[in-house]
């Protein structure tokens, strides 16, 4: 079902693509960039399908003609998809891994493809998006298409290509055979080579707004979250639908409340010892990092209140408490505390002894004279 109309919020990209088709100015290489899970891959597939659909003259591909049906099952011989894959997975496990990767890549819960492992597409055929797999791409790009007018190559997470792989694409990206279209998808275009950027049109996929994410979560998920949950997940997801989808599966409201309590613990108090013990017992660094994320989000809201801003709060369900906190904080103090959280995150990733990190954050979040680090 890769349809443009299924992709929310990317109208300006779609308008541009439509314009390029209409004016016959479709280039041979695009970079689709934007946060993870905002519709890049779906748009790439929809474009491939639309280019080869027998019926559509505008907007979505028809979805019914014979090429369309192949694209919808990701089984068209002229659609090539490359994405990084763990090199270690081989044999029978490989199909499983591919299925897993596909699930992850296809905007979980929202866009579903029927996929058979017998598909003729090149799914990360070699190892990673390493030179090997790109060699396959170059080989394919040198051959006539099987049946399509336009052969489409989609490279996901293109910024993860090795240097050798990226360089070996330069010639194709500049002067491919007629009838080839390369689409490089990435959430980090700055990491692409200058020489690659120079050869492509870079289309930005915008972050989805919180409202859009809330609506999508409530509309499309099998088990729709409450408004409150959806709102918090959306605020933390920063424009990415897939991030938000992952978040609503967690207990976001509870996590947020825990974070707020954490921010206000008195160093060395019985509560603080208890909180540290609880968190250490969970042994879940990701969860603790999430705690810090919610802490940031909370401080951000306090900042908005302090600034007298009318921008809606992320924690709008707890506005009264945000306002109360704003009474005792200043902008420099918020800045300092955010720096404390940032440093703690770094320690967390650096595998520093957990109780130490936690006690230290509690301490520093309160000590106003402490020098912010980082």
């Amino acid at each position, binding site marked *: 079902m890769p349809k443009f109309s299924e992709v929310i919020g990317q109208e300006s990209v779609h308008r541009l693509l439509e314009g390029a088709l209409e004016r016959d100015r479709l280039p*041979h290489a695009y970079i689709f960039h934007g946060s993870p899970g905002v519709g890049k891959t779906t748009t790439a597939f929809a474009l491939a399908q639309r280019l080869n659909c027998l019926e559509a003259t505008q907007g979505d591909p028809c979805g019914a003609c014979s090429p369309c049906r192949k694209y919808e099952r990701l089984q068209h011989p002229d659609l090539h998809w490359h994405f990084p894959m763990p090199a270690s997975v081989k044999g029978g496990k490989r199909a499983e891994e591919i299925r897993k990767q596909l699930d992850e890549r296809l905007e979980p819960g929202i866009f579903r493809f029927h996929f058979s492992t017998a598909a003729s597409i090149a799914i990360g055929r070699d190892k990673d998006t390493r030179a090997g797999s790109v060699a396959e791409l170059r080989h394919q790009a040198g051959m006539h298409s099987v049946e399509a007018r336009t052969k489409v190559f989609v490279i996901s997470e293109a910024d993860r290509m090795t240097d050798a792989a990226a*360089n070996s694409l*330069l010639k194709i990206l500049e002067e491919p055979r007629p009838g080839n279209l390369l689409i490089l998808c990435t959430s980090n275009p*700055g990491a692409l080579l200058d020489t690659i950027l120079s050869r492509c049109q870079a289309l930005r996929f915008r972050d989805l707004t919180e409202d859009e994410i809330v609506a999508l979560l409530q509309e499309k998920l099998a088990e729709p979250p409450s408004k409150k949950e959806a709102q918090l997940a959306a605020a933390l997801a920063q424009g990415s639908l897939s991030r938000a989808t992952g978040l609503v599966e967690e207990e976001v409201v509870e996590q947020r409340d825990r974070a707020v309590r954490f921010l206000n613990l008195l160093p060395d108090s019985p509560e603080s010892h208890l909180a540290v013990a609880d968190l250490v017992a969970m042994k879940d660094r990701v969860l603790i990092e999430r705690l810090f994320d919610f802490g940031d989000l909370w401080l951000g809201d306090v900042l908005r209140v302090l600034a007298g801003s009318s921008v809606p709060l992320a924690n709008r369900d707890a506005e009264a408490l945000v306002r109360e906190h704003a009474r005792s904080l200043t902008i420099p103090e918020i800045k300092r505390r*955010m720096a404390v959280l940032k440093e703690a995150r770094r320690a967390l990733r650096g595998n520093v002894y957990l109780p130490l990190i936690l006690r230290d954050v509690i301490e520093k979040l309160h000590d106003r004279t402490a020098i912010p680090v980082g």
Partner: protein
Amino acid sequence: MSYLVLARKYRPQLFEDVVGQAHVTRTLANAIEAERVAHAYLFCGPRGVGKTTAARILAKALNCAKGPSATPCNKCERCTEITDGRSFDVLEIDGASNRGIDEVRELRENTRYAAASGGYKVYIIDEVHMLTKEAFNALLKTLEEPPSHVIFVLATTDPFKLPATILSRVQRFDFARIATRDIAGHLKKLMKKEKIKADDDALALVARRAQGGLRDALSLMDQILSASEGKLDRPAVENLLGLVGEEFLFSLVDAIADQDAARTLSLLHETYTQGADLEEVAKGLTAHLRDLFILSVGSDLGDLVDASDTSLERYQEQTAKFNPETLSRLLDYAATASATLRRSENPRLTLELALADMARLSGLMPMSEIVERVLALEERLGGVPEASDSVAAKASPAKAKAAPAPKKAVTAPSAQPVRKKKDLELETPEPVVDRAPPKSVPVSAAQASSESSEAAPAGGAQKLTGTLWDACLESLKTKNIRLWGTLHGVKALIDEDSDSFQVKIGERQNALQREAFSDPKTVTLLESTLKEVGAPNPKVMLGDIQEGAVDPETKSPEDERGMGEVMKDEPIIQKVIDMFKGDVLP
């Protein structure tokens, strides 16, 4: 179907059509005319500036049926074969996908055969930096004894990856980034050919975005043309490329000037929900503040500002809302936010915090003003000159704070209208007066001048060197005004023992300044300028070198804090702050 992108459609087929590389094309043309063509060339330079293009033109020039001629006919069979990439005598090899030794050996085999046309055989190895070490060695053998009919053209964006042995065998041409003006001019010509109406302003914007790469400019142009309706003006380009508009930046900076944090946040919220890229916002803001800062330094510097003549006036109006010191701090904030955004956990919060902070900051008093006011106050209070010394000395972050301060009471006459707070009388401020001169003394351009215009500071040598640095900056004004604008306010750290002149670039310098210092040309220029103004053995040093220059014993936590923080501890400053209801710039 299959549209040919502008970059391919308009690939120059003659040397004279290659924009901005006259130093290369003229030399090549002369060599061809004089029949003194080298056996191996290296074309290097940034992306999209004409390396591959020039290599192909060279090949044609050598093989044209009417040649060799610097102006190939582009009509004969041989020329067209080369243009279409079908020639057997001109082989273009992608070094990045044929990087192994086997491929190079094959190529060597091939060089043995004479050209089908009886002329030259030209091997263009593009992206040659990707060859493996073994492949380079194999290539070297051929370069050492090239058959007389064979010419190699190596092209790369990354010559540093080539072994020295190869470099010494080739005639090297460095292709330059193409000037924004030239790119804009080229675009204008092409738009005429494409029969598309475009404002100069719009094309200039595209040219700037291309950052010296002509192909980048053409890719951007393609993108614009695939979506544009009607005439191309600046807003249309901003819109089609998803750029942060000038209008928006003016509003945002106005809000900062008005110290209206709420409005900065609303503006950000609005543009973000409309789909703006936060990184672009931060970059745009930085560039905008840079322009304002440059104008604040000299209103005659409009040329250095990325503004059209019509909007220049607006820039100047906005500049007038700030003083230069505040602008330089704001620029620093924006540049820092912009640099950290990508690594940030929550870029939006990072940017919101930076904006709110900037709005706050623009309401704070710049330090020079505070020092001035303190000095004025001291005078009115009948204080003695040392007090001003202590202020200036304290303002220097590298100062020690160990030794006990000689007491110096500020005698306070009873009825001073300026003092609003009672406690000024109750608590006698004890400014820390400078002790034995530390080894290194930082002086900023701004401070040095305020010192010299006020009471005589202790330690003539320090003052002298401070003046030298000032003189150096002053002289830069005529040499490289842009650099001068950037370096304004950089602290020079003078190591008196070695008599060398070190320029301190630490965390607190703004990003533009740090960047300027990573350019060896800047360092050379500074050193020669320092010498001219009379600095003995000037050495401009970067990075952590200044850490060593500061005596670790005397390095106090204050060194890590902003100057404003240090100053806040100073009782008299605190008083002043209270009095003026201000705060110290961090």
